[in-house]
């Protein structure tokens, strides 16, 4: 009886967590593209106006970012100005939760068929590298190791701390600006 009552609450909590994480990640993607040369280099290979989406199937939470040129991303929230170019789609809310709560690495989630790619796979591979780089910056090493296939050896603490601080500051600023608007 109790389990039956708790289940919808747990599901709602997962939904809220995934929505929140998408909002943080979208803003953080924009932020990391403003502070990290490696990410900018990766993003520069994407066409200008390229729209990337991550979403939960069928009509769940989503994040959309656009490459606005020069290796910079712009976070569009959960609505795209036009059809997206590449979409990484989690098959179920639970799969998104597993990845976004760092219980399952993104690469493992792909290997486990938890999500599928709609669009040019080579761009999806590139965006996955960007996401890995972002996670390596903003997560404590012990958690980042659970999120990415391999924690970058050349990412040392001072660089990580400075970049993470810049990214979190930009994310917070963006949240405040959104709230005010």
């Amino acid at each position, binding site marked *: 009886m109790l389990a039956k009552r708790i289940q919808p609450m747990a599901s709602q909590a997962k939904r809220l967590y995934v929505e929140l994480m998408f909002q943080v990640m979208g803003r953080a993607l924009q932020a990391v593209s403003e502070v990290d040369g490696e990410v900018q280099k990766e993003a520069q*290979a994407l066409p200008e106006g390229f729209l990337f989406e991550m979403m939960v199937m069928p009509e769940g939470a989503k994040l959309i970012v656009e490459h606005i040129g020069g290796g910079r991303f712009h976070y569009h929230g959960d609505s795209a100005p036009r059809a997206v170019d590449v979409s990484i789609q989690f098959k179920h809310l639970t799969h998104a939760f*597993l990845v976004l709560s760092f*219980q*399952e690495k993104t*690469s*493992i989630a*792909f*290997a*486990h*068929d*938890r999500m*599928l*790619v*709609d*669009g040019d*796979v*080579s*761009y*999806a*591979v*590139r965006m*996955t*590298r960007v996401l890995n780089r972002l996670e390596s910056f903003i997560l404590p090493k012990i958690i980042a190791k659970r999120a*990415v*296939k*391999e924690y970058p050896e050349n990412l040392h603490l001072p660089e990580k701390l400075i970049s993470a601080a810049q990214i979190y500051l930009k994310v917070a600023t963006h949240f405040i600006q959104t709230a005010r608007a």
Partner: protein
Amino acid sequence: MSNSYYEFFCPVKVIAGKAALEHIPYELGGLAAKRPMIVTDKGVRAAGLLDPVIAACEESGLEIVSIYDDVPPDSSTTVVRDIAAIYRKEKCDSIIAIGGGSAIDTGKAVNILVSEGGDDVAKYTGAGVLKRPLKPFLVVPTTAGTGSEVTSIAVITDEKKGVKLPFTSSYLLPNAAVIDPRMTLTLPPHITAATAMDAMTHAVESFTCMAKNPLSDAYAAAAIKKVSHSLLQVMDNPKDSDGRLELAQASTMAGIAFSNSMVGLVHSLGHATGAICHLPHGLCMSLYLPYVLEYNLETIRGPLGELLLYLEGPEIYAATPASRRAEASISALRKLRDALYKRCQLPRTLKETGKVTEEQLDAIAEMALDDGSIMFNPKEVTLKDARAVLQRAWA
């Protein structure tokens, strides 16, 4: 509870062995197909490989309504459109693709158009676009390597845009794959070697990459055993039909394995090398396999060590300390490549191909990093890592 999870899917009926071709009329009959069209290439026709298929159908009173034998090595949307037009004009009701990867992929793409309608197959590119079963479709492979007869993907070049279009759907899978040793008996030695090493690579990567699972492992291990046991026998005696059948079955089994567990860096590098230097796919697979296994070694030591049993047999496996089995597996593969080089000069290094320059290695590395298969490589690969593997494979 562990986080392990996998999916496995292969609904293709495999018809393999002596007089397998003679089952085609029965299979088509079971699918209510009476007017089949053959899709193939000129090489297959010139080698006389259509004759036993046509004879098998005629003996059962099944008329082959149309034969399209001009599939190019790199098939295009225009070719697909033209074949679909012939299919409709001749009122065909099924397709038999006979050939290697290109003919089979073309057959899959033609089946999309003739089932879904229209002239522009590009409309159906991507994953999961197809929503219903297509027309009856049989595949008769004439090489033993690609495994295309059991994969749910087709790649067709869009000539106008100059890009390769991937089509992915379980509906692309044929109703049956007909594996008959007569179809590979005349394969020249270097193609026999390269395609068999393609199958070997499918199996080894399937067994060692991230999406490995118990079912794909079973197919991969059996495929490796068959290639290890039969390849050199067939190279020495090309008319060995039992050996040919073993290789053909290994190719299909490796195809089933890798289509359910994906492949890794060998394929990423191979796809990039094929695109930039126009080297045959099987050759690239054979060339890169040991270097990539060395790169991945510490992350795949366990499964790679297990493969020694299938590569070298129980005596050598038992005599090799567990801690040395992974290295011994790589040595076995190197030994096999050396034997193939001796028999048909199948290149073992990029330099030996004579078609790659050292200046191209950076471009190959960059392209490989964006290849979809790199996602499933067990070890993360940076540009520097890919470049280092290429340098080792250079000479």
